[in-house]
């Protein structure tokens, strides 16, 4: 559907008001001397309930809004933000933003996009659940209680809880610029989550969690299912210990395989490209990974958490391939990084009210393969089923990867005893090549998703 008419039809009164404010701020910025400007307004509502051992722990409820203004004057850039929307405050705010640009140096690559503006009909993307705000406090408490109770009921070894929560948020995003772009879209999200624990030796507690999240309440897993999965994951860790240091095959649970995809997308960011700080530098177009590696960034999937109708600079949302059958297809770029590297934007800008646009992802997906998770585990004779990563020991410049880990040991194709306090390490370049199997189990509980996968070898440090 065409963008213009859709915008009008999908807009609520609140969004229309925000658009008016944003347009007004843009006009004022021009009047104050800016050559170009864009204004982003984020307005939202959050509500959450947490119960622990069936008692209400907290209830949080609030609405908020904030405005970010980017101005470009003589090739100099400044960004200012405010949450004070009164006319006097906004007038002062705009003047200060334009003054602030004088601090910056002239940057030829800076500025608004020249082409590519537009938006996909937000209605076609199913971003907003109109029923989500009907939830009253008592029903939310009930959902959280049912979730936690299901975990306790599932296994008597579950003795404690870190709490169960139900929460939702709704929000509008409005972006207007001096090149005539005006976009608005409204989205929602909700989740049920719980963390539970079982007692183990030496006062240690074996904990795990599970959650379900979606834009639409009706698509959530039942609270009972969430509770049961958390309990299963926690009790299977009882008796966890270290294993000897050696190189073994590793099967990645989807809870952790998505971390890997996130790291590859970071390495494919145009920001690290022009800063020459990514191990993917000079590898565009080359077959560098296993043919099983396919990664896309797709903002156009209806109803998914990372979907959006336009990017952080007002460019129309498009699907981008990052890896196709092991070939590194392209870097993700916003306008600035595209100009810095003589390329075109891939419409991958993300933007918060407090800063300039930067490169980011929408629905970042490692495409599923043919194998079931069971087949993948069954293929390993002696190796690690990795369910947990701890820490931030990655170096995107070199590709070196080293993180704390936990999981279950696989013997003769079967999950056996739990493993903890170990470390997994390798280099992302080798790890991409060593991808041997890819699962068929994609679960869109987050904006970045990947299936179960198997890597031929990783170094495990333990005893």
């Amino acid at each position, binding site marked *: 559907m065409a963008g213009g008419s859709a915008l009008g039809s999908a807009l609520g009164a609140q969004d229309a008001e925000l658009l008016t404010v944003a347009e007004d701020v843009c006009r004022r910025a021009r009047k104050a001397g800016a050559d170009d400007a864009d204004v982003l307004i984020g307005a939202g509502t959050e509500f959450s309930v947490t119960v622990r051992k069936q*008692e209400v*722990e*907290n*209830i*949080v*409820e*609030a*609405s908020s809004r*904030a405005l970010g203004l980017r101005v470009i004057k003589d090739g100099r*850039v*400044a*960004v*200012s*933000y*405010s*949450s*004070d929307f009164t006319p006097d405050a906004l007038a002062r705010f705009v003047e*200060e933003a334009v003054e*602030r*640009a004088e*601090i910056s140096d002239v940057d030829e690559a*800076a500025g608004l996009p020249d082409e590519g503006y537009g938006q996909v009909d937000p209605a076609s993307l199913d971003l907003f659940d109109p029923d989500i705000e009907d939830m009253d*406090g008592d029903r939310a408490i009930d959902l959280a209680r049912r979730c936690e109770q299901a975990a306790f009921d599932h296994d008597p070894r579950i003795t404690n809880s*870190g709490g169960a929560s139900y929460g939702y948020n709704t929000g509008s995003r409005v972006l207007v610029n001096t090149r005539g772009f005006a976009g608005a879209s409204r989205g929602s999200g909700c989740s049920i989550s719980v963390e539970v*624990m079982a007692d*183990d030796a030496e*006062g*240690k*507690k074996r*904990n795990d969690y599970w959650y379900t999240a979606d834009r639409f309440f009706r698509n959530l897993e039942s609270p009972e299912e969430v509770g049961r999965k958390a309990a299963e994951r926690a009790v299977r*860790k009882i008796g*966890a210990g*270290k294993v000897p240091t*050696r*190189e073994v095959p590793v099967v990645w649970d989807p809870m952790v395989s998505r971390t890997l995809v996130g790291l590859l997308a970071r390495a494919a960011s145009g920001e690290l490209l022009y*800063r*020459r*700080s990514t191990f993917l*530098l000079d590898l565009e177009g080359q077959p560098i990974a296993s043919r099983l590696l396919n990664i896309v960034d797709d903002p156009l999937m209806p109803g998914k958490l990372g979907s959006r109708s336009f990017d952080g600079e007002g460019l129309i949302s498009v699907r981008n391939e990052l890896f196709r059958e092991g070939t590194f297809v392209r870097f993700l770029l916003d306008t600035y990084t595209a100009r810095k590297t003589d390329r075109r934007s891939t419409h991958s800008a993300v933007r918060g009210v*407090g*800063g*300039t646009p930067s490169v980011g992802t929408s629905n970042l997906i490692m495409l599923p393969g043919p194998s079931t998770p069971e087949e993948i585990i069954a293929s390993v004779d002696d190796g690690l089923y990795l369910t947990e990563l*701890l*820490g*931030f*020991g990655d*170096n995107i*410049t*070199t590709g070196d990867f*080293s*993180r*704390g880990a936990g999981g279950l040991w696989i013997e003769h194709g079967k999950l056996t005893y739990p493993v*903890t*306090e*170990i*470390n997994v*390490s390798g280099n992302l370049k080798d790890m991409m090549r060593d991808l041997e199997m890819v699962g068929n189990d994609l679960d869109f509980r987050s904006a970045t998703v990947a299936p179960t996968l198997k890597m031929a070898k990783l*170094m495990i*440090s*333990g005893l």
Partner: protein
Amino acid sequence: MAKQPQLQDYSAAAARALFRTRYGIDERALSELLDVALSRGGDYADLYFEHRQTSSISFEESKVKTASGGITQGLGVRVLAGDSTGYAYTENLSMESMRQAAATAAKICDRRDRVGPVNVAEAATPDRYHIDKPSIEIPSAEKLSIIHRADEAARAYDPSITRVNVSFVEEVKHVLVATSDGRLSADFQPMLRFNVQCLSEVGSSRQTAVDGGGGRLGMEYFVEHPPEAVAREAARQAVTLQKGVEAPAGYIPVVLGAGESGILLHEAVGHGLEADFNRKKTSNYSDRIGQPVASELCTVIDDGTIDHSRGTINVDDEGNVAKKNVLIADGVLQGYLQDRISARHFGVAPSGNGRRESFRNYPMPRMTNTYMLPGESTPDDIVRSVKKGLYAKAFSGGQVNISNGDFVFSVTEGYLIEDGQVTHPVKNVNIIGNGPDTLSKVTMVANDFKLSDGRWTCGKDGQSVPVGVGMPTVLVSGITVGGTKQ
């Protein structure tokens, strides 16, 4: 900023005055809002007002790329009914919006037994980060000169340094906390953070490294930390990494250098001693007060009172004066980091550790500056005692699982120790240990205590707060190093 009334001094009184003059928040307004918050019953309520001004300059390719900044202000209202918290916030400091937020937070209670009016009286607060002028009010030319000096020094350090990124981030926060037990506390909280990142390129081998620091002070930070020194340190680390060999994999002795290694305490001990986890008995330190949880060489302190340190606070975000709290004395667990809810649960006084990221968040027990007291060994003795191990000097971050005690931290500058000598630098490597187990393996503690430069930010439940760490050189006789070379 420029066209708003300037506040003459930078202190609690200034914070108090800002909310009164700019937003009309006087004793009467506070009393009324607390009355609304407790209108449906409740044991306690507090109001947290925050006015936060930030400014940052990002510099790259020897140019200022972006200048950014802004102001946020708001009120967070909390109502406690037993251990249950009702929380609401608003950015709009009109009486109508604030009343509405108070009424929303009040919904946690349904007893309808109105508590009655509360009057608040100002409480005295210490002044641990007095400054003449926050850097945010200094003309930008002075900051740009600092930034250029750093850029030039990093490039001059070594011809392989091809890119230098510098950031200069400033914040001033005015806070006002009014509680239903009648206390009114105010604070003025400045913060400065200076950062230099360098890329070293030798052929196709590229390495990046970062250094920086800051604290609750203004431009005087640079008297003790010239921008050139910060820049050279970042450049030195990037160049050193060019010579990095594969790090060892396995369970080996690790010598932790003075200063930054305090991150070990933050992860291995600090988080697990936050009293919310212990009240819920979800920490591996639950019910262990009075028991040995570390070697006798370890005395660990959380100290919110160090002048101008990044983790220092005059009062916490519940209005309690910050303290110096001994967590572990000679290896024995002494107590937890308390906020109001947990202090009531344990029947102890609040320890001044109730902190929050902003008015949008309710407070939780959090660390301030966490450090280990020095011992009697010398750093040389410690290194000489190790036949084969790792010397860890600089770090990028860490994480802990509170329940089972597993923690990690990532080494960005480390060296092999061979036959008592520090030899080759190693590639970035992660280290994983288990809280009480690792602390029991601290077998030597040196006399060279150092507080880290102010660069650390701690995350918990999605809330970030600035913290400090400190450490003497120590030997951990065995811990798992996650390298690639067996």
